[in-house]
């Protein structure tokens, strides 16, 4: 555990308490989910989804609108409880980065980081804030109110808040949705560096090419069902055995083949 890492108990999803069946073995996946089901009235948002992610792994969750991507991430983050299924984790801390920046616009960058570091019960708050400002390259904007930042910088603060407790697993919902290409590139450099440092990153995206370039494994969801789980290249091969296709075309063809 690093100097700034949050207390494990405080960062774990609250609903997991008492629901973890077995501890995961060392060297195995950091996060493991089996048969997750979520219903909103008569509508089934998730229909028995399985997932696992190892240390330092980048997992992309893709699918059409309403596929259940955000629902899956909010369940993994502990914001919602599944109606059925099991979830096991041996991660020390779990960071959550929602699609829209979740920060206080009247507070400065540093004040936001400091507040969430305190709420996450980080040991050395000042050190954690300094580290995240450096990682997000926002040292010179530390005292600025976040309402005055650009969309890209707000998203960097948003991710920095998710990382302030040094979680072993980071969950991101559409992290690049509001960013221009240059900001997207910077963000992926940042996320890739995190994964190389051992942080497991699971993210949802509409941008299929991001999954191709920035994912070790891809989870394809449609109407709450898991249609595919594997490496991006494997998905392409599934569809385009006879002719070379780009990843996005292959993905659309895959969905069509499966009736979506």
């Amino acid at each position, binding site marked *: 555990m690093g100097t700034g890492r949050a207390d494990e108990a*405080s*960062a*774990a*999803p*609250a609903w997991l308490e008492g629901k973890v069946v077995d501890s995961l073995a060392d060297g195995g996946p950091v996060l493991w989910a089996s048969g997750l089901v979520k219903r909103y009235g008569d509508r089934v948002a998730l229909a028995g989804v399985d997932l696992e992610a190892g240390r330092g792994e980048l997992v992309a969750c893709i699918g059409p609108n309403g596929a259940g991507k955000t629902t899956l991430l*909010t369940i993994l*983050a*502990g*914001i*919602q409880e599944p109606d059925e299924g099991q979830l096991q984790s041996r991660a020390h801390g*779990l960071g*959550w980065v*929602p699609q*829209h*920046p*979740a*920060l*206080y*616009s*009247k*507070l400065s960058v540093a*004040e936001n980081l400091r*507040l*969430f570091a*305190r*709420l*996450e*019960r980080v040991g050395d708050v000042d050190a954690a804030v300094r580290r995240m400002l450096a990682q997000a390259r926002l040292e010179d904007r530390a005292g600025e109110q976040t309402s005055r930042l650009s969309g890209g910088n707000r998203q960097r603060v948003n991710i920095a*808040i*998710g990382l302030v407790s040094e979680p072993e697993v980071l969950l991101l919902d559409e992290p690049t949705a509001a960013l221009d290409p240059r900001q997207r590139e910077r963000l992926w450099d940042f996320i890739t560096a995190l994964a190389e440092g051992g942080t497991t990153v699971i993210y949802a995206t509409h941008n299929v090419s991001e999954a191709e370039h920035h994912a070790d494994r891809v989870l394809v969801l449609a109407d709450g069902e898991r249609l595919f789980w594997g490496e991006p290249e494997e998905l392409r091969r599934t569809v385009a055995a006879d002719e070379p296709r780009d990843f996005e075309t292959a993905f659309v063809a895959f969905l069509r083949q499966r009736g979506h």
Partner: protein
Amino acid sequence: MRWLLIKDLQILRRSPLLVAVLVLYPVVVAVLIGLALSRGPDRPPVAFVNEVPKQERLEIGGRRLDLVSARDRLYDRIDPVPAANREQAIESVRSGEALAAVIVPRDAVRKLESRFERPRLEVYVNEDDPLKARLVDDTITSLVTTANQRLSRAFTSVLLRYLDLLLRGGPVTVLGQQFDVLGLKNVERISLRAAAKLPAGAREREQLARVARFSQLAQQNLDLTDDVLAAVAQPITVERRTVNGARVPLTTFAAAMAVAFSLMFVTVMLAAGSLALERSENVFSRLVRGPVSRGALLTEKALLAIVCSLAVTLLMLLGLGIFIPLEWDRFGLWVVTLTVAATAFAAMGLTVGALARELSTASLLAFALLVPVAFLALIPSGVVSEAVYDFSRVLSALFPFRPTLDAMSSALYGNGALGAPLLHLAALAAAFGLAGRVALSRFG
């Protein structure tokens, strides 16, 4: 929770316009409500009972006064509530059907005709609501002033006749016996004539005796002039009696209302707004997934609203204390009452915030709710129909404003019991707290 509270105070500090609106707006609205309500209805419902026997007629100075047209004029100014006798009239005030009962005692005509006694009009008022009491005061004062003016004209005519008699002399009937009054002019004439003719020690003693008797009668009449003048000035007096409650100055009631309204406005707006802000800033899911439970978040928002509204209303009371007399030895009761009331308002605000789920909607919903809640609670009895009044009472009981007003009236100047409204507020706090918690489950 401590860090969230500090964060919210930091955000408030950086929103001076919001703070100014939260403090100034309720003060302005409270003053406007006070002014609007102090006008009251044009024709207040009053139970009128005339105990004077029907056969009695009022005659002053030989001139009969038309009592029927006087009653009609009275009924033009009030909305008469039927009452067969004194007991029914008082009961109608007690039940709230009438704002006041006016009773003309059975000896009123006799006293008026005697010219030396003043009849006393009995007025029964329900003092539970100082606004109503003020309204009745204004109406009765106006009615009595009009009646006194008419009677005053009749008495003035009698007085002029007495003065003429004293001046010129003539016949006058007192207790059935006729006297011939000499008059000051005759005295002058006789005295001058006697003086001119009088030799020393002659028979003029009889004339001098007449002068002496006139002098005596003149003195007696002048002695009576004080009473006659008093009767002329104010023939009818009013005896005011209270059916319920204690007499409360309107300014003190206005202070209680201003404090209650400000407390409601600041607490509800802050609780609703600060909770909805967490979702508008998209932070709610980030908070409740681990660092802060939903219950702790509600508690923190309630605490923020209570602390801020307590500070505002106590400062307001300190300011009001400069202009109106307040009982400072009851300060402890003020704080207890404000705290309990603020808790109920905070719970109500949290429910609004959790239902609205978005900052601007929460502010609009809270704003749209608060003003009608205040007006409903301030509708005086007798202004609307009994059914509408009862309905408004039931609706008011569902929100903390009316019990807060009752509790503040009691805490500020000991009008009515404090325990019942505080228990009412505690029950509302629990109910709204539960509703807020349920609403928050679908908040994220």
